[in-house]
């Protein structure tokens, strides 16, 4: 530590942004295009899908054939650097807590690997307390966010269909891809029992955007690896790259933010960070500070930014920072469709993800849980990877294969026939729903533990309530009905019950962390105002999932983008008016 010192940058930026995912990327994009000078601070290394994606790699081009590692929990070709754990950057659990925290340390963050499911919130999603009395209403409504959803649809690109649904609003959609074979089975079966199935809404370019011919989808189904052709939305390729091209953005990578710096007046003056490259301490300064490090990481940064003026952490006079942490609910089930045994082979990669989905279709007033869920569908001919038809002995004695009843298990030429016979006959479904944001489900600073940079870490204190468990039970019943209706046989996820909360995933596992610095009109009950701006510190903003009051039964990225664009345009205006 002999050569240890704090290096202060002399440049004064209009904004210092922490994090380059959906929120930070959008903020950098909007501000840079408005001519403002931006310093973009990212905790991970640089990442350009065109150079760094594993797209089109064959399974044998991974020594572990695509199996997961701690570096790539979603498999060796996945587009996220790190995930449930990051070496040297721990987090801890209060007793009973099972929170799972995904951290993508790279330019673009987790948008490099996400599912591209891009669902607008509907009018009801901003006003849930008015409907069911639980949680809180947002200080804004759908009409406030709609213009930004509209702009993002057209700027970034999304496919889908206008269905005129009351709480799943229409948008500016590219045409969706036709359903795959198993999706036609799902659609027919679900429709027959009154469950709607409509084209999914993914930010993938089934056609080129009229104003941008540089991006292209080639239907390889590998969006999760990030796209070398920029044919889907990643913040790295679609937002940060063009932001950098303006010349108005200085990008600092491998820079782990430590604290928000403040002056005597209590205004934010910049960010201090430790460089992972040289382990030196740096400070960068700006007229505004915009946090977009992820809901939990931004809360951590605020809680760690203590000063006489902000003894509980910056922007935390309410004590709300870290509270109301919530994730989407999730439960899954899979089966096999005997009718699809011995299928004709063809390339059905399609886009990366499902071509159809089920939006929430029921009335919660008639159910024992207050919020809805949507259903995602998977199946078909996937690239063979580690785990290919694992435990075939549970399957190949249960069905006649080419007209012959075999003994379960086996080996040899007969076994090779079995692997061919079952390939492409699997189907899976995943419910993703809304839980209730609660004050007593939260993260806080662990008083005893620091990471390898000496930054105090988060301790989680989260739990589900009976609402979420009842919802998972309903998901499971629905999946069984759909699978039964399509003539499929449940092969996994069918044994869940009260003993394991009906297979409800641990909180955090669905990777939709939100709510830690929620917005609101009352500074005593919220951290941010309706412009994603701190009540306490007017030039501090947070534009990630932290600002969410509730997260709907919709994946949150499209709303993060919309709110980040809205906040950023507000910042541009306020800076012009010299209000910041």
């Amino acid at each position, binding site marked *: 530590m002999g050569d240890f010192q704090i290096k202060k940058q002399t440049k004064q930026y209009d904004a210092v942004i922490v994090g380059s995912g959906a929120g930070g990327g959008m903020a950098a994009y909007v501000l840079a295009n408005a001519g403002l000078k931006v310093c973009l601070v990212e905790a991970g290394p640089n990442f350009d899908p065109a150079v760094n994606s594993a797209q089109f790699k064959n399974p044998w081009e991974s*020594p572990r054939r695509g199996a997961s590692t701690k570096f790539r929990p979603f498999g060796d070709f996945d587009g996220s650097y790190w995930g449930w754990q990051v*070496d040297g950057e721990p987090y801890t659990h209060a007793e009973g807590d099972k929170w799972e925290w995904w951290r993508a340390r*790279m330019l673009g963050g987790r948008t490099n690997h996400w599912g591209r499911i891009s669902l607008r919130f509907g009018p009801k999603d901003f006003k849930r307390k008015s409907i069911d009395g639980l949680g809180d209403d947002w200080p804004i409504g759908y009409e406030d966010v709609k213009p930004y959803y509209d702009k993002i649809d057209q700027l970034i690109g999304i496919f889908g269909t206008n269905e005129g649904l009351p709480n799943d609003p229409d948008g500016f959609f590219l045409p969706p891809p036709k359903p795959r074979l198993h999706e036609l089975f799902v659609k027919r079966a679900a429709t027959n029992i009154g469950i709607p199935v409509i084209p999914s809404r993914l930010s993938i370019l089934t056609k080129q955007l009229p104003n941008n011919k540089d991006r292209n989808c080639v239907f390889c189904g590998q969006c999760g690896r990030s796209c070398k052709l920029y044919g889907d939305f990643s913040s790295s390729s679609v937002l940060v790259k063009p932001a950098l091209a303006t010349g108005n953005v200085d990008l600092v990578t491998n820079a782990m933010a430590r604290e928000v710096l403040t002056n005597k007046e209590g205004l934010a003056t910049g960010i201090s960070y430790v460089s992972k490259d040289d382990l030196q301490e740096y400070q960068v300064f700006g007229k505004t500070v915009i946090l977009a490090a992820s809901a939990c990481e931004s809360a951590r940064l605020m809680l760690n930014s203590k000063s006489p003026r902000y003894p509980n952490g910056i922007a935390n006079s309410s004590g709300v920072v870290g509270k109301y942490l919530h994730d989407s609910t999730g439960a899954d089930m899979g089966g096999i469709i005997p009718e699809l045994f011995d299928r004709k082979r063809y390339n059905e990669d399609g886009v990366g993800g499902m071509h159809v989905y089920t939006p929430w279709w029921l009335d919660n007033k008639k159910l024992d849980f207050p919020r809805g869920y949507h259903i995602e569908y998977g199946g078909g001919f996937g690239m063979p990877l580690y785990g290919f038809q694992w435990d075939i002995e549970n399957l190949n004695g249960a069905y006649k294969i080419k007209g012959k009843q075999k003994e379960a298990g086996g080996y040899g030429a007969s076994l090779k026939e079995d692997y061919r016979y079952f390939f492409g006959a699997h189907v899976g479904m995943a419910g993703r729903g809304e839980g209730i944001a609660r004050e007593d489900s939260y993260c806080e600073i662990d008083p005893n533990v620091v990471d390898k940079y000496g930054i105090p870490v988060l301790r989680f204190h989260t739990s589900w309530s009976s609402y979420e468990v009842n919802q998972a039970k309903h998901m499971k019943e629905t999946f069984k009905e759909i699978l039964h209706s399509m003539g499929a046989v449940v092969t996994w996820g069918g044994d869940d019950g009260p003993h394991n909360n009906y297979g409800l995933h641990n909180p955090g596992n669905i990777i939709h962390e939100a709510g830690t610095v929620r917005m609101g009109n009352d500074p005593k009950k919220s951290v941010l105002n309706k412009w994603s701006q701190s009540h306490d510190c007017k030039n501090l903003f947070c534009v990630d999932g932290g600002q969410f009051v509730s997260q709907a039964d919709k994946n949150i990225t499209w709303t993060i983008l919309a709110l980040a664009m809205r906040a950023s345009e507000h910042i541009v205006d306020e800076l012009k008016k010299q209000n910041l």
Partner: protein
Amino acid sequence: MDRRKSIKALLIGTAATGVFVEACKNSDKKVTEETTLTKFTGPERMVEENEYYKKVAAEKFFTEHELATITVLADIIIPRDAVSGSASDAKVTDFIAFIVIDMPSNQTPIRGGLRWLDMQCLKRFEKTFKDCDAKQQIEIVDEIAYPKKAKPEMQQGVAFFNLMRNLTATGFYTSEIGVKDVGYLGNTPNQWNGVPDDVLKQYGLSYSEKELKECVSFDNKG
């Protein structure tokens, strides 16, 4: 069976194979290592991954006797047939040798399973599994390859064989030979035009007018 005899047989089996294989390998060892390092440490890998890979690629777990036994077993599970080659054609042993280092939880089940198998063979045939003749090998495999009809005292062998079947299938079907065998035709730029007409017809399905109107379609002829 005489206990000393069986231990001697095990030792001879191990040492003899070891020396032989090492002699063959040494000449091209360096070239092979450099090739896999380049192959698996490209720009799509993060710095920490490359460091980790270099470390594990240099490690060895199995003895030559174990590797030879795995090869025999894997070729029984996935032999050459009319459609494609065998597990050893697809270098499945190399994959299994790597995966136990990458996923150490597999080490004991496989090492112990191989030894369990050798002990069964020594008691019955006075030879280790790989030195048994094909008929003897199949005799013992038949007793552990069918979980539902296996005798209770063979259950440990069944669990081992299930794992070997799983790892062999993964190694094979994720190889170039195996991907071709099972008929995965993706991973290439194309335009998705929906399920082929003859397939729709086979299952009595069709796209609705709404779908045909709203979905993207491509003129693949033009």
